[in-house]
């Protein structure tokens, strides 16, 4: 073999293996093959270079080398014999058969190499297994001892696979448990949900009779047909007109002028009737009920009349707001129903819907049987339908919130809410919030949401001073009963109502704004104001004896005798202690001064043209003592300026700017003289990488840990620490060397 060929081969192999690319360069590979074809010597040489490259501690090099090897393996018998002779080492380097020789980093390349190697060896076994025994042996070794699954594309080892299986089994178990729990849950709460849906349904029915949008026709509604008996509480039918009157009121107030009202409604009806049969029917129905006195015509007749009379002509400009759709406003009449609806809505939204969604998730994830999933989905869709329906109702929440706070005001006017508010603080003074279950105890009616009978109206908050005016539709029996009970409670001194009454009697009326601060707090606030002027000093002996002459201040009895008690009375003499005396009369007051924030800036010029914004009191850590500077950052005083200039000169001498490598190179290029830019540049620039294409292994080592290690395990630092420790030890030894327990360390 010629030397040139040999060199060329080595060069090619090195280039190919250090390219860092996952695929080989085909041209170069072709050249290698071309040279190898000439003689077996070349193959020998290539084999050795490839093996040496395979031994490199870099997975990318190994991967490329392996690819070359597999190319040649399928071509040359000689190469095969060579490689098969050393098949053990080859496997160690590519398939990681030896656990003590793991594949080198980077990890992705190593993984790829292993997968590729396993696939290749399988194909080799298929092609050459019979001819080359060691290939077959190696294959069996991998298969039976190393338990490599050749079918598995991931080429995982048996341990990994087992782990995976274990995990899956565990997950399956967990899923099964979850499914069981969820199905049980569902079993339990299905009844409840259905009941709630039913309730919702009936409430809606109560609010708007025949409210049934075709778009939200759902399984729930179809499954649970409105059943007046089932609707909890079964509100009396005579309430329905009231609710629907709301609807009308809303329309009235919402948009139209009074005089146009009637026609409008007719038009509305007409339009809706043209558009949607259902809608038409509903609105007609409601109108029919609510305005039975005003309009006696049959809806169809009405239509005919409009059409016949030609009222709707092209000259009319109608502005209809159909999107307004339904609008339910809360009044005292439908208060109970609405609050039930709200509660139900909240219950669905916060409790049942998330729960159902969770079940659906669990079932789909675990792949549970169809039925459960369908059931859960049904539940979910019906709940969602109910929510949707609720949304379409456009119930006015805000009015309700006030209504809860309010006593029992007249439903229609909303302006008088403010003076209703006045009563609220009375209750707030001692109990801002009354839990539901305690309401009865406090003389309050339970909230209608929890009440079993929605018929009972929302009870007004406590208002004993002004007995509630009998509301139009509230049941007189209940209000009188409440009043009576209140009075009874006021007699009972243990009851909160009695305390309240007492308070009311004793205290002046609370200020206009609702605040919880009562008498004492206001007095405190006035004293606070005084405190600003007069200094506060801590209480001390001097204050205790203020203006008094103390007879035996600073006197101590000095026991001359050492005996405890067997002593003459005369022996004990009193001694005057000046210090003690002074202490009882004097007081130390320290004057630390006041903190004044620094208002000046350092203002030294920075590199980016700005001024230093630091606000140190005396000295800037970067620019030295703070001196007065002008707007450009130059010192105002002459001596400061001189000093600064001197410093700058010194700095420039240390590192002249013309020695900047780039600048020098430019100058050299311009002048053609050698200024030594290479030297300078080299000193600064790091060593050039040998193979720029390979991924850098050392770069990976640049982690927080490694950086810390570099600092902590720095030689000089270690030595310093060791010195300090040794010194401490020796000091201890000097001091306590005669004590045995220190001798040990």
């Amino acid at each position, binding site marked *: 073999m010629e030397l040139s060929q040999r060199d060329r081969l080595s060069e090619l192999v090195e280039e190919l293996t250090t390219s860092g690319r996952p695929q080989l360069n085909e041209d170069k590979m072709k050249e290698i093959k071309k040279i190898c074809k000439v003689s077996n010597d070349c193959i020998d040489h290539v084999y050795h270079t490839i093996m040496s490259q395979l031994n490199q501690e870099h997975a990318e090099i190994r991967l490329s080398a392996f690819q070359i090897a597999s190319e040649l393996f*399928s071509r040359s018998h000689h190469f095969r014999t060579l490689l098969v002779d050393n098949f053990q080492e080859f496997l160690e380097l590519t398939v990681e058969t030896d656990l003590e020789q793991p594949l080198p980093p980077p990890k992705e390349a190593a993984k790829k190499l292993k997968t590729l190697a396993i696939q290749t060896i399988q194909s080799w076994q298929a092609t050459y297994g019979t*001819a080359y025994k060691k290939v077959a042996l190696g294959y069996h070794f991998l298969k039976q001892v190393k338990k490599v699954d050749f079918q598995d594309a991931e080429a995982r080892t048996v341990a990994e696979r087992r782990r995976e299986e274990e995990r899956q089994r565990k997950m399956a178990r967990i899923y099964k448990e979850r499914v069981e729990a969820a199905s049980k849950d569902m079993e339990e709460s299905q009844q409840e949900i259905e009941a709630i849906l039913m309730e919702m349904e009936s409430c809606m029915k109560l609010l708007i009779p025949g409210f049934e949008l075709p778009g939200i026709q759902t399984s729930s509604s179809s499954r649970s047909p409105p059943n007046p008996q089932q609707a909890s509480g079964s509100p009396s039918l005579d309430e329905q007109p009231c609710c629907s009157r709301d609807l009308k009121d809303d329309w009235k107030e919402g948009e139209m002028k009074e005089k146009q009202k009637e026609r409008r409604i007719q038009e509305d009806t007409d339009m809706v009737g043209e558009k949607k049969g259902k809608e038409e029917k509903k609105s007609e129905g409601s109108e029919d009920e609510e305005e039975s006195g005003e309009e006696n015509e049959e809806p169809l007749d009405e239509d005919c009349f409009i059409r016949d009379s030609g009222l709707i002509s092209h000259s009319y400009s109608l502005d209809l707001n159909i999107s307004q759709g339904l609008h339910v406003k809360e009044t005292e009449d439908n208060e109970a129903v609405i609050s039930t609806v709200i509660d139900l809505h909240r219950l669905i939204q916060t409790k049942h819907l998330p729960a159902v969604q969770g079940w659906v998730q669990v079932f789909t994830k675990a792949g549970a049987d169809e039925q459960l999933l369908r059931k859960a989905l049904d539940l979910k869709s019906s709940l969602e339908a109910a929510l949707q329906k609720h949304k379409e109702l456009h119930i006015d929440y805000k009015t309700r919130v006030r209504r809860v706070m309010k006593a029992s005001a007249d439903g229609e006017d909303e302006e008088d809410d403010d003076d209703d508010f006045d009563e609220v603080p009375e209750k707030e003074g001692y109990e801002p919030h009354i839990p539901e279950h305690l309401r009865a105890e406090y003389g309050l009616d339970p909230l209608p949401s929890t009440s079993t009978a929605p018929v009972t109206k929302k009870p007004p908050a406590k208002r004993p001073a002004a007995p509630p005016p009998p509301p139009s539709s509230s049941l007189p029996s209940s209000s009188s009963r409440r009043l009576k009970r209140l009075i009874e409670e006021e007699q009972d001194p243990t009851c909160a109502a009695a305390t309240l009454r007492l308070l009311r009697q004793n205290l002046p009326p609370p200020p206009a704004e609702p605040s919880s601060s009562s008498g004492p707090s206001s007095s405190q606030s006035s004293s606070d104001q005084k405190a600003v002027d007069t200094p506060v000093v801590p209480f001390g002996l001097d204050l205790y004896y203020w203006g008094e002459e103390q007879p035996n201040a600073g006197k101590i009895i000095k026991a001359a005798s050492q005996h405890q008690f067997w002593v003459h009375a005369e022996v004990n003499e009193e001694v005057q202690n000046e210090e003690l005396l002074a202490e009882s009369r004097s007081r130390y007051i320290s004057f630390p001064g006041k903190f004044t924030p620094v208002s000046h800036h350092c203002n030294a010029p920075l590199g980016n043209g700005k001024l230093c914004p630091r606000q140190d009191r005396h000295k800037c850590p970067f620019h030295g003592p703070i001196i007065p500077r002008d707007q450009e950052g130059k010192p105002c005083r002459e001596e400061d300026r001189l000093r600064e200039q001197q410093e700058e000169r010194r700095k420039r001498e240390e590192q002249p700017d013309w020695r900047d490598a780039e600048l020098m190179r430019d100058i050299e290029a311009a002048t053609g003289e050698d200024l030594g830019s290479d030297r300078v540049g080299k000193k600064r620039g790091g060593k050039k990488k040998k193979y720029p294409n390979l991924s850098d292994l050392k770069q990976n080592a640049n982690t927080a840990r490694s950086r810390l290690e570099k600092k902590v395990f720095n030689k000089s630092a270690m030595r310093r620490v060791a010195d300090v420790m040794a010194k401490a030890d020796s000091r201890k030894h000097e001091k306590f060397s005669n004590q045995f327990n220190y001798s040990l360390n």
Partner: protein
Amino acid sequence: MLGYLTARQAGLDDPLRLRRAESTRRVQSLKLNPDRDVDRIHGNGINTIDIEAIEGRYMLSGGADGVVVIYDLENYSGKQQYTCKAVCSIGRSNRHVHKFSVETVQWYPYDTGMFVSSSFDKTMKVWDTETLKPAEVFEFEGNVYNHHLSPIARKHSLIAVGTKNPKIQLCDLKSGSRIHILQGHRAEVLSVRWSPRYEHILASASADSKVKVWDVRRASGSLFTLDQHNGDKSKASSEAVNTAHNGRVNGLCFSGDGLHLLTTGTDDRMRLWNSATGENTLVNYGKVCNESRKRLQFTVSRGCSPEFVFVPCGSSVAVYALHTGELVTMLRGHYNNVDCCEFHPDYQELYSGGKDCNILAWVPVLRAPDVEEEPDSTKKSAAGQPSVNPAFEDAWSSDED
């Protein structure tokens, strides 16, 4: 070859000469042969194998899973391709199977109806080959590392047993009892070996780096202890006196004529000793990798003119010339550590077992048909070979030009 044959015909040569020459050639050409396979029965590493001396037909193997298998090595099919079948095995389903790794198996030297196996389950069992049931079970206090039956003994039927206990046990097959102990070692006895020349001479190797040679008729102590420095005090440190190796001695083998003794130790050395005087012959075999903590079974060839040693060395088997220490070849084929090898003296074949669960047969390469005499047939065979096995062909594609 022809010269040998004519000389043999003319009666000029010793009859042994041709035989020796041919067997030497065959040993030197040992190779992994694709035509010869051994059934894979063991699911775990193979610790020991033994070929019976009577017919040379059956081979025993003991695995780390406690299984003992008997193979038939003889090829009666008439074809080149042959897989050594497992005749019978004492598998895990057998009631009497060894619980732990089988460390040694050995045929009874005079009859294939009986074999002995010992294991880390602290027992040694004497098996009846026909019924595959133990005829006798010896129990010991510690793991049994090795046992050996004398191949030539006529006057006694003792089994020497090396266990975790430093005392060597002698068990008598006649009475079925442990009749004797030999004291002298300070650590577990890893290998024991009877001399193939004198039936009462026994050698033992121990983890205390000593190798002792015993005469079992003389119970008071060993005959001598092998010393790697031949008694030269200046070279030996005080601890290393009378030691054969600087580590555990885990391999022991007499040469075929019993005149020499080979030992291997975990100091990666192999030493050849004069078995009569205990003198270190100072043959340098170079580094013989040896990391085994258990016994290493290695063997020497028989009937070759320079004898060869086959010693496991990592994942390959090294072949050394016995007396010169020259490395002849490395037999590479195992993918994990080799634990045992056994030489078949009749066919000059070598069987080796390793931790990769393989038993490999190393078969001499047949002499290639003489090129000079029959060029036509050579051509034919050369042309025929690739047609049989296209894998041996080069497959350069044309587009690389």
